């Protein structure tokens, strides 16, 4: 059914093999382990998780930068196979990628004009359109006056401007989907909101979809409609942003929300409730629910033996936790 869903992932798995002495298998890192979700056109979703929860691996799988171990991705009504060069080219023409570290993502030896014309050249956009497309994209991300910026090199730009350039490069082919991997984590607090608003405005004005990945929950609420919470390779909770902030269901989502401070001097007087321990190893994840060793509400005999399926205690709010069966 093309047109109804832009992107859909079914039981997606991305495992990385660990090698011993170069050829023996020493197990797998289950970075993404059975994830399903749907994305409608012009919808924006945020994936929140700690480092090592597999959020970047999920994104790399969607982009075809990592091999799929199991499951499938359907993009725009067609199954995407990252082993096919044709599929890769088609996918990347329709998906814009905003990287985390803008300076690392921009070639230092190219000026802005060259950086922005690269995707146009690769995708064989007619030469006479280039100038206009480049100028439009730059105006859109407010790298103005355009003529001053065109001959500049990445090192001449500030962090915020570099990130704008990365965004301009991502939208210049007018993709249907933008994936942004922690686009503001390297930037200063005062610039972050500006960049997030810019992304959100672009998304709205072009009816693009966005998958936004972050570990910073507090920025989510101004940005996207739906939030997925990832823990140890799985999506444990899917909800509308407002709903999640007000009423988190999964115990992990609850402690995560609780741990984020708002600026207030009262914070100094009390201690935070934080679960003991650290996220599990993805080579040997715990049996049953992956959060059960740290969970304050774990049910003995259930949570540690059986993996919870997805429950939907409220409409559009699903959670993988036995508490809601």
């Amino acid at each position, binding site marked *: 059914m093309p047109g109804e869903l832009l992107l859909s992932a079914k039981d997606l798995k991305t495992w990385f093999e660990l090698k011993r002495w170069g050829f023996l298998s020493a197990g797998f890192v289950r970075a993404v382990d059975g994830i399903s979700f749907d994305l409608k056109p012009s919808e924006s979703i945020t994936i929140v998780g*700690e480092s090592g929860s597999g959020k970047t691996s999920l994104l790399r799988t969607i982009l075809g930068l990592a091999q799929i171990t199991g499951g499938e991705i359907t993009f725009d009504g067609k199954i995407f196979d990252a082993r096919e060069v044709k599929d890769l080219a088609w996918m990347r023409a329709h998906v814009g990628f905003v990287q985390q570290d803008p300076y690392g993502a921009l070639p230092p030896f190219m000026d802005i004009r060259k950086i922005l014309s690269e995707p146009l050249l690769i995708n064989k956009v007619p030469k006479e359109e280039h100038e206009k497309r480049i100028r439009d994209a730059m105006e859109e991300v407010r790298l103005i006056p355009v003529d001053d910026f065109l001959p500049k090199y990445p090192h001449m730009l500030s962090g915020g401007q570099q990130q704008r350039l990365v965004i301009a490069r991502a939208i210049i082919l007018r993709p249907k989907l933008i994936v942004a991997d922690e686009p503001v984590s390297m930037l200063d607090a005062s610039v972050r909101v500006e960049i997030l608003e810019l992304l959100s405005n672009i998304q709205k004005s072009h009816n693009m979809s966005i998958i936004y990945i972050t570990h910073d929950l507090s920025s989510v609420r101004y940005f996207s409609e739906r939030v997925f919470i990832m823990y140890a390779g799985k999506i444990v909770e899917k909800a509308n942003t407002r709903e999640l902030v007000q009423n988190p269901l999964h115990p992990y989502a609850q402690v995560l929300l609780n741990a984020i401070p708002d600026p207030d001097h009262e914070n*100094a007087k009390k201690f935070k409730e934080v679960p003991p321990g650290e996220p599990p190893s993805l080579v040997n994840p715990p049996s049953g629910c992956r959060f059960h060793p740290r969970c304050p509400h774990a049910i003995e005999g259930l949570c540690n033996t059986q993996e919870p399926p997805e429950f939907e205690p409220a409409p559009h709010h699903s959670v993988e936790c036995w508490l809601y069966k």
Partner: protein
Amino acid sequence: MRKKNKEVQKIWSSPDFHGPVLKVEDLRLSFRVPVGAICAVDGISFELASGRSLAVLGESGSGKTSLGRAILRLLPRNVLTYTGKVFLEGVDIMKLSDGRFRQQVRWVKISMVTQAAMNSLNPVLKVGQQVAEPLLIHEQMEKDEAYERAREVFRTVGVPLDFLNRYAFELSGGMRQRVIIAMALITKPALIILDEPTSALDVLTQANIMNALKRIKQELNANFMLITHDIATSSELADEVACMYAGQLVEHGSAARFYHEPLHPYSQKLMASVPALHTEKRPDFIPGQPPSLLNPPKGCRFADRCHKRFDRCHEEPPLFNCSGELVKCWLYENG
């Protein structure tokens, strides 16, 4: 056998001292670069009372890390000017020779927790050995005694004791950061400078570390100077807040006041840019960019981006005292 250093003359003779732990007067630090001089710390003065913690806030490039390093005299080679007075428990440590500073101040009286713990630990030494090292070097302690003390600080920061015999690469990021904090605590310093101690860590680990720091603050009555750009996290530890902009201190006051009603227009904008999770508030951003420190503008340095600027702003404002808070803004000329 370790060679015993000859007995050095102690600078701090009496163990109890009443008065501010740290007093900085007109501290200036500038660096030589090919095109001129960059003034990273431009005439900063403040005081920190005993048992209090100070958060130094500012954007990157505002000179907050340089301020921390200037206090600890950890300077790069291209320093052009390094002047002012830094009183630690009443003694002007700027007057000390490099040798005496190294022997009796750095990591004895003032220690520092740096940003990226993974880069600060030695990969080929066991962490226990690294944590005990300051005692072996500075206090000529016997090995057993030093390790006993290391065990004690490991307990304080919440690292399992068997980690003493592990290497840095065997620990997670949060544990490594705790080890660095343990190293900073081991000599019982008068002041601990925390330079972005949690910015490389995850939310839950961050909350864990902040809890540990809070406990240390209560139990040991330690003085922290927390340098960060993360305003929400800084509120977990701060009693006082100093806000820096373009190398200058623009506001210094109590945390209770600062987080609710900042006075300087820059602090107001900065606070407004913090996204808050639990309240309905749209974050704002500050238009424009901070000025270059190569040729800072005359007058108020924030004037170009300020929403409240008026005629007076082309002159440089002094720090006005507005009912106990210090603000560098002409708006508060009359208190």
